[in-house]
């Protein structure tokens, strides 16, 4: 991680990696979602609505992973003052917010036929909505600090403090009585049949790779923008 903190070294790696992650992700998403839509069996209880799982679960995972990435980058910025850490945190924020929104919207579209309601103020859904508000707050704070020429330390502290919400989201289905189903996939075992687990795994891998490509593209754009601003300042001086 320390090696990649050098922008020149990072760009040398990021340029080829962006295309590989982007095309690999798109291919895996096509395979995973086609499998989930047309080949995977319907659920014995929920019927075909279970197919929403192949977009909802990857979106939930990436919404949470995005904030975990922001928290890690924020820690690096505060402790080691890595030049790329603030750029990485800012690049993660918008994709994280978009996937959190996708998770909430697809969950709502799943809830209506499965539970008979679009929304319920239960622990899992409410804590996920809080995550979306945290993302919006982080984006606003980071932008404001950048406009004032700051290093983004306030946003970094916000990124670290906001990580408290991640275990709340994860354990919400255990801590509170909820409409949302409990944990189905663990590290060692899963209650989902392999005929559904494989397309879910492929779809999640595809969305994750594409998420990585999006973050790299946004980091490259931010670094290029810094170069443009620095060069314009030199030309004006």
């Amino acid at each position, binding site marked *: 991680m320390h090696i990649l903190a050098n922008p020149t070294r990072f760009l040398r790696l990021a340029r080829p990696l962006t295309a590989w992650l982007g095309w690999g992700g798109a291919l895996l998403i096509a395979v995973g979602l086609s499998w989930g839509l047309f080949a995977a069996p319907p659920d014995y209880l929920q019927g*075909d609505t279970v197919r*929403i799982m192949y*977009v909802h679960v990857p979106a939930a995972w990436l919404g949470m992973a995005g904030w975990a990435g922001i928290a890690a980058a924020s820690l690096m910025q505060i402790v080691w003052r890595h030049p790329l850490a603030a750029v990485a945190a800012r690049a993660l924020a918008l994709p994280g917010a*978009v996937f959190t929104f996708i998770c909430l919207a697809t969950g709502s*579209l799943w809830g209506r036929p499965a539970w008979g309601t679009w929304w319920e103020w239960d622990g899992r859904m409410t804590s996920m909505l809080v995550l979306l508000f945290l993302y919006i707050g982080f984006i606003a704070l980071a932008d404001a600090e950048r406009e004032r020429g700051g290093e983004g330390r306030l946003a970094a502290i916000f990124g670290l403090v906001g990580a408290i919400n991640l275990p709340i989201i994860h354990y919400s289905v255990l801590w509170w009585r909820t409409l949302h189903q409990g944990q189905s996939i663990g590290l060692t075992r899963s209650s989902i049949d392999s005929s559904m687990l494989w397309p879910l795994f492929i779809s999640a891998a595809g969305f994750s790779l594409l998420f990585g490509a999006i973050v790299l593209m946004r980091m*490259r754009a931010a670094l*290029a923008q810094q170069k*443009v601003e620095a060069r314009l300042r030199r*030309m004006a001086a």
Partner: protein
Amino acid sequence: MSHWPFIAGAYAVALIGTFGLAGWSLAAMRRTERAVESLKGER
């Protein structure tokens, strides 16, 4: 109640959101990297 309109809606939200963001990020990256190259030429 047919479940397919809900499934189609969920897939549309996910795919438009994901690939829309990817396309937008790609365009922004290309635009700024081209700006860096054009400024190099003005030196």
